[in-house]
């Protein structure tokens, strides 16, 4: 029997010993290569299923109440033959200097130093929507009505994620329920997190692997190695929100540097 089970078997209330292993902190980062994004929306559907994001009816979408934690923004550029469109997957950028955090009156939008993420505590949100207005990326989605999951569809809801009620703000959390589960497993097994062990739902299903996810504080990670190229940019950098989502420019000559 492991040392652990022996301790448990002597059945006495043991002093609340300090946790043995130190809780490591991470710099979760997402890298989206716009050269590979084909706008197929697989990430959008995967995110809906993973995070219990409700699908709104036609009437609601017409009134602008459509909720997608990640959406594909399609912009038209150029004229005539040079007519181009770019797909820009837009989701919460988990800003390190997030404009939505200071404005929330009830600490529902808080920053997690350890995970370097912007958290949205659904049960604390009272729905003033100040954060939604202050997000320049409009990445925050509001539950204008209470979501309805009809019939047995409630069976496919992911038990790891809170099903939000009406009147609550929600947003992409980098699949924080997966991050927590992977961290808990690593913590229990007493080992550091491996790169690629934590993959959000969108990165896992993206057919062209346009979305790469990892902890950029670990130099060996996929993300850290691919950052810093000429093609790298961040959306609305000039606002100083220090987002944690990096994009790689699309296009370039067919033989040019990657």
């Amino acid at each position, binding site marked *: 029997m492991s040392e652990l089970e022996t301790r448990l078997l002597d059945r006495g209330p043991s002093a609340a010993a300090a946790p043995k292993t130190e809780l490591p902190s991470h710099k979760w980062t997402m890298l989206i*290569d716009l*050269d*590979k*994004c*084909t*706008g*197929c*929306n*697989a990430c*959008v*559907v*995967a995110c*809906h*299923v993973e995070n219990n994001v409700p*699908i*709104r*009816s*036609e009437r609601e*979408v*017409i009134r602008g109440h*459509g909720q*997608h934690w990640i*959406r*594909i*923004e*399609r*912009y*038209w*550029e150029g004229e005539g*033959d040079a*007519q*181009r*469109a*770019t*797909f820009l997957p837009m989701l919460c950028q988990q800003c390190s200097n997030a404009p939505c955090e200071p404005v929330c009156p009830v600490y529902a939008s808080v920053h997690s130093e350890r995970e370097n993420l912007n958290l949205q505590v659904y049960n604390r949100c009272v729905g003033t929507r100040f954060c939604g207005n202050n997000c320049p990326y409009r990445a925050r989605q509001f539950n204008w009505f209470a979501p309805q999951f*009809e*019939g*047995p*569809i*409630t*069976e*496919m*809801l*992911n*038990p*790891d994620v809170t099903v939000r009620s009406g009147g609550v703000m929600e947003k992409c959390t980098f699949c924080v329920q997966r991050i927590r589960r992977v961290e808990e497993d690593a913590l229990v097994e007493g080992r550091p997190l491996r790169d690629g062990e934590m993959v959000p*739902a969108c990165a*896992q*299903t*993206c*057919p*062209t*692997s346009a979305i790469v996810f990892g902890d950029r504080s670990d130099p060996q990670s996929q993300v850290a190695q691919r950052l810093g190229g000429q093609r790298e940019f961040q959306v609305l950098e000039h606002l100083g929100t220090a987002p944690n989502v990096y994009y790689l420019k699309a*296009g*370039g000559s*067919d*033989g*040019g*540097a*990657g």
Partner: protein
Amino acid sequence: MTEKISRRDFLRLGAAGAATGVLAGCTSPRRWVVLEPFVRPPEQQVSGVATWYATTCRQCPAGCGVIVRLMNGRAVKLEGNPEHPLNRGKLCARGQAGLQMLYHPDRLSGPLLQSTRGSREFSAIDWNEGINRLFQALEKAGPAVAVFGGATMSDHLFDLFSRLLAAVDAPAPVIYDLYTELGGYRMLAQAMGQVYGRAALPAYRLAEADVVFSFGAEFLGTWTSAVRYGVEYGAFRSQPYGKRGLLVHFEPRQSSTAVTADDYVAIAPGSEGLVAGALLRIIADGNLGLPGRAESARGLAPSLDVDQAARESGIPLEALQRWARRFAEAERAVAIPGGALAGSSNGMLAARAIEALNVVSGSAPAGVNTTPPDLGLARKSLNTFADVQSLIARMRAGEVQVLLIHSTNPAYELPAAAGFLEALAQVPLVVSFGPIVDETAVWSDLILPDRSYLESFGYEVVSPDFGSPVVSSQQPVVTPVFDARATGDVLLTVARGIPAAAAAMPWGDEVDYLNQMVAGLPEAAYPASTPEEKRARFQQHGGWWPAPAAAAPALRPQPFTVTAQRAAFDGNETDYPYFLHVYPSVLLSDGRGASLPLLQGVPDPMTTIAWQSWVELHPATAGRLEIRDGDLLRVTSPHGEIVAAAYVTPGIRPDTVAIPAGQGHQDLGRYARDRGSNVVQLLGAALTDEGGGLRWNGVRVALARTGKRIATASLESKVGVTEGLGYE
């Protein structure tokens, strides 16, 4: 049912109670929350920890491998099977949404009987009565039985249907649906047969390609296996030393593949073959490209005037020359004949012309030039529209007593001119196996709902195979949610009563049949010693695939001639000024996705519209006819008329109008009903010149304002997206 308890019965009995918390009342919650433990816990079930099962996605005919995450006995997430050679751990939007089909609120629980067809008054009957009715009809019908199947019917079910029909010596099942027709599966297979001698769906490896010319092939949206082509495209864009390849896309409408391409060429509809022929001619005449290429081009190039071809296809001559040189000089150049060709009158000619480009560049498609080892498994072969017309003729002649329809919706997918519904009247018993009441089920007498693919056994031979044959396995991942029964079991039960069929199908139930089939498979990539272990590994890994063998030698193409001329369009220019471009919707495919809210509610990539159908037209055309977004237009073609909302987009040719397939259902559940319009009603039933396919891409239409408007359910701000970016 035999005395041996199959895996499904074990699941059904064991998992009687899942741990559910029922919170009721407002007094201290502790007292009222009931915690129900299992009676007999299934062995791998740890409440709170996920278990994963491997199975196959049946949302489109490709057959990608899927692993399903289960929490407390409920399927909560689908992911790509990382080991599966086709999709390598990835899934497309339709694959991800497949889970909602399992828990769809409109799924039928138990068989239904409809007194008068089209009345939609169904009376529930139990399974014994349903199966007895089918059995008595089949027994009486003898050879007068027909099966109309779709491409997403699993191969094991196709095998059982074929054996049943062969036993009662009725003609083989007809496998045909709108998705494979719009994708041109059958036509491309026939073309490959003429070029390489083996009629199989081609698969083009892009991972190492330098230049890819795609002629109307939306391989990043819906064509053949959008996931595998996504994986290939990802590799194509990140080749070593920063090489990202050149993708050129020829299509009248700017699809998501067109906008991700490096160069998009808005060619005139129906002129793909002409352009390919012109390129061959230029390579041959100009002696371009690597050594040897010009000679083989000279052998194949059609005799045509390049200037006239340029004028007709709407591409400047110097552009044609530029593309011809790029294609000829690229070491690994691939030309992909797309689905749009299948609908043109000269589809086969165009496909051969484009395949000639591949022959010139020496890159034959995978899955065509290798002779597959004999797996001993049945494999669906798709039928042409001509076969469907002959089936309809048989029905109209009264030669069909019992018609079985599975995983296809002909009442919605076939054009009215095909006369399917009229012919249905002559068939005494129509049995539909759809899980949800769709348009065809409304015109059937008996509905024996099949299980969703996440609840049923089976195998599917993957098509297109990218070089090595793959068989995907299916297994139930949850206790069946509704009282549906696997069609395979229904057939085997019925077959036991018919002497000829009983001999041909000796198995007790589907699992017996599958165990025998799997036992016959050769050595797989994963080790499996005893037959039981091979069966278990077959389901655990999610299928069978051989160890990666060396690339098979490229088959020498047979001599074939290339002629190139523009496709014909019915409807004269004056009455019907616009070409109609029909394409399968990226999310709803050919309409089977319309029942899922996950697919209806997610915006279409190019138009960002959800829940609606639309008519795409160029701003110039819209300006001339004073049409704005959301105006309801009456679109009339020589064969029919529909009303749909306009969507003005710069991504289409001024003389062309594009309408996606998928909406316009009267049935198929609460999410699909009365939404948009069905573009198939505009199509005629004419055949293509060669190959017997449906000519769905050769229709001209006229537009007329109805004066009414609807609000478009689009996610984008039209102003912001077009002018906004420049901020002028």
